[in-house]
C-alpha cells in the first residue's frame, strides 16, 4: 500500500465509525450497540498498551492494575476536588505513567515468565490496595461520578456538557472512537519510528542490543510508561461512562483478557489489539444466547483458533508478512 491509499483507508475507516455506525444504529434502533462499541474502543486502547509491552518482549498481565489506577485517579479528582473530567483524563494517564516508572524500574529487570507472573500479581496488588486504602472508599467504591462537563474556549463551546445531551451514549461513543484513532495512529507512528525499531531489537535480544549501544534500561521503562499511560486513560474513561469504579472493576480476568486481545489479533501487527478486542468482545456477546454454555463454547473456539492460527487473526489476511513462512513450512513437514 502506498502512503496515500493508507491515509485514505484510515480516513474511510474513521468516517465509517463516526458517521456510518451511528446512522446504522439509528436505522436499526439497537442503541445498546453504542455501549458495546464504546467498550470495544476503550478496551482496545488498554490492550494497545499491553501490545507495547509485547513489543519490547515482555508479557504484560498487569494492565488491569493501571486501568484501575487511572479510573480511581479520575474518579477521586472529579468527585473529591471538582476537577473537570477532561483534565483528569490526561492526568490519570500521567499518574499511571509515573507510577509505572517507579514500579517498572525494579520489575522490568525480570523477563519472560517471571515478568508475566509479577505483572499478574500487580493486578492483585492494585485490587487489594483499592480495598485497603481510605481514599478509595474500600469495597463500596466511588459511585455517582458526575458526567463530563463542558469545555469552552473564549465562550465557544467545544465539548458540550454531557448531562445536557439528549444522547450521552453517542457522545461517549464518539469520544471513545476518537481516542482509539489517536491511540492507534500514535502506535503506528511509534512502530515505524527509530524508537520503535530499537524496541524491536529489545524484543529479539536484549544483551545484543545493549552491546551495540542501545540504552535498554531507559527504553523499556519508557515503553512501559507509555503502555501504562494508555491503560490509565482507558480506565479513566471507563469510570466516566459507568459513573462508578470499584476495586473489582478491573481484575486479573480483565488483565488476562487484555493480553488475549493482543494474542488473538496477532502480536506482529499494530492493529492486532483492535481486531482482537472486537472479535473477543463481540464473540462473547453473541454467545450470550447460549446461556450457561457461553463460556464453554467461547473457550473451545479460542482453543480451536489457537490451534489453527497460533500467530493471530491478522496472520491470515496478510500472507506476505514476515514470520508466516515458518508455520507454513512446518505444516508441510507435519503432513
Amino acid at each position, binding site marked *: 500500500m502506498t502512503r496515500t491509499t493508507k491515509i485514505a483507508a484510515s480516513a474511510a475507516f474513521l468516517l465509517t465509525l463516526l458517521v456510518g455506525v451511528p446512522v446504522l444504529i439509528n436505522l436499526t434502533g439497537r442503541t445498546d450497540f453504542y455501549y458495546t462499541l464504546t467498550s470495544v474502543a476503550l478496551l482496545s486502547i488498554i490492550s494497545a498498551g499491553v501490545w507495547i509491552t509485547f513489543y519490547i518482549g515482555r508479557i504484560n498481565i498487569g494492565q488491569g492494575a493501571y486501568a484501575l489506577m487511572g479510573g480511581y485517579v479520575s474518579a477521586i479528582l472529579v468527585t473529591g476536588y471538582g476537577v473537570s473530567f477532561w483534565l483528569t483524563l490526561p492526568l490519570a494517564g500521567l499518574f499511571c505513567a509515573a507510577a509505572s516508572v517507579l514500579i517498572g524500574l525494579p*520489575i522490568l529487570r525480570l523477563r519472560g515468565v*517471571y515478568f508475566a507472573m*509479577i505483572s499478574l500479581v500487580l493486578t492483585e496488588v492494585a485490587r487489594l490496595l483499592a480495598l485497603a486504602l481510605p481514599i478509595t472508599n474500600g469495597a463500596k467504591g466511588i459511585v455517582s461520578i458526575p458526567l463530563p462537563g463542558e469545555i469552552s474556549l473564549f465562550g465557544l463551546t467545544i465539548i458540550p456538557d454531557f448531562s445536557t445531551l439528549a444522547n450521552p451514549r453517542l457522545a461517549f461513543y464518539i469520544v471513545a472512537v476518537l481516542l482509539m484513532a489517536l491511540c492507534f495512529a500514535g502506535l503506528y507512528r511509534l512502530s515505524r519510528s527509530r524508537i520503535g525499531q530499537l524496541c524491536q531489537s529489545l524484543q529479539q535480544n536484549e544483551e545484543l542490543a545493549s552491546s551495540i549501544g542501545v540504552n535498554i534500561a531507559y527504553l523499556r521503562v519508557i515503553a512501559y510508561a507509555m503502555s501504562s499511560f494508555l491503560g490509565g486513560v482507558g480506565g479513566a474513561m471507563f469510570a466516566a461512562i459507568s459513573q462508578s469504579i470499584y476495586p473489582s472493576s478491573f481484575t486479573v480476568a480483565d488483565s488476562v483478557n487484555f493480553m488475549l486481545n493482543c494474542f488473538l489479533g496477532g502480536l506482529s501487527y499494530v492493529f492486532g489489539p483492535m481486531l482482537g478486542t472486537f472479535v473477543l468482545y463481540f464473540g462473547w456477546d453473541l454467545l450470550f444466547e447460549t446461556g450457561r454454555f457461553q463460556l464453554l463454547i467461547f*473457550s473451545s473456539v*479460542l*482453543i480451536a483458533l489457537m490451534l489453527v492460527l*497460533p500467530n493471530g487473526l491478522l496472520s491470515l489476511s496478510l500472507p506476505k508478512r514476515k514470520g508466516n513462512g515458518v508455520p507454513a513450512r512446518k505444516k508441510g513437514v*507435519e503432513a
Partner: protein
Amino acid sequence: MEQVIANGLYLGAQYALIALGLTLIFALMNVLNFAHGQLYVLGGFVTYTIYGQLGLPFPVALVCSGLTLAVVGAAIEKYLFRTVIRRSVREESTMLLAAAIAFFLDSVILLLFGEKQRGVPKIIDGVFISDAVILPYDRILVGVLAVLMIAAFVLFMQYSKPGRAMRALAQDRIAAQLMGVNVNRYSMIGFALGAMLAGVVGGLLVTITGVNSGIGGPISIKAFLMVMIGGAGVVGGAIAGGFILGMMESVGLTVLREFGDVTYLVIFALLMVFLSIRPNGLMGKPWG
C-alpha cells in the same frame, strides 16, 4: 506461636505440592500453566464424587483423582500444547492457549458440578491437643501425606529413569534430544505428572476446606507466587516457596489481624522488594 508454626507447616506442605506441579511443567515445556488451579479444582471434585457421593474409601478416591488428572494432563500436552508450540512463531502464544484451557476447564467444572461449595465427611475424627498446639487429626494426616508425596516426588526425579530424563530435558532440551531422550514422550509424562500432583492436592484438601468451582484462579495466583519466591523451574525452589508462603500466610493472618485483610497485600509488597533484589527467586536459574 507454636500453633502458628504448625499451621504454617501444614499449609506449606499443601502449597509446595501445588507449586511442584507448576514448576515441573514450566521447567520441561517453558509453559506457564494458567490452568493449574483449575486442574486442582478438578481433582477436588473427582475425590468429592467418588468419596463423598459414591461412598468409596478415601484412598481409592485419591488415586482416581491422580489418575484422571494425569490423563487430562497428558491429553492437554499431546493434542494442544505440542501442536501450538510447533506452529507458532513466538513462544508466548502458549499463554493464550493456557488461558483458554483455564476458561474451558472452569466452564466444564461449572457445568458438571455446579457452583456450590462442596465438602466431604472427615477422614478421621478427633483433635490432637497439647499445651501449645491444637490440630485436628485429619489435618495432621493430610499434612503428613503431602510431605510423603513431596519426598516421593523428589526421589522419583532424582533416581528413576524418567526422572533423570526429565531433569535432562529441563536443563537443555536440545542436548537431551541429542543424547537420545525421547523429548515428546517425556514432555507428556512431565505434564501428566504435574497435573497429577495438582489433582492429588485437590483431593487431599477437599477433605478439609472443601472445594468450589471458583477457586481455580486464586489457587493459580498462589502457585505463581510460590514459584516466583523459589525460582521457576527448580524443584527445591518450589518446595521452599511453598513452605515460605504457607508460613507467611499463617504468621500474617495472626500478626496483621487488627489491620484487617492486608496479609496478601503485605506478602505482595515483600515479594516485589525481594524480586527487585533477586530477580530469579531463591534458587532460580539466571535465565529470566
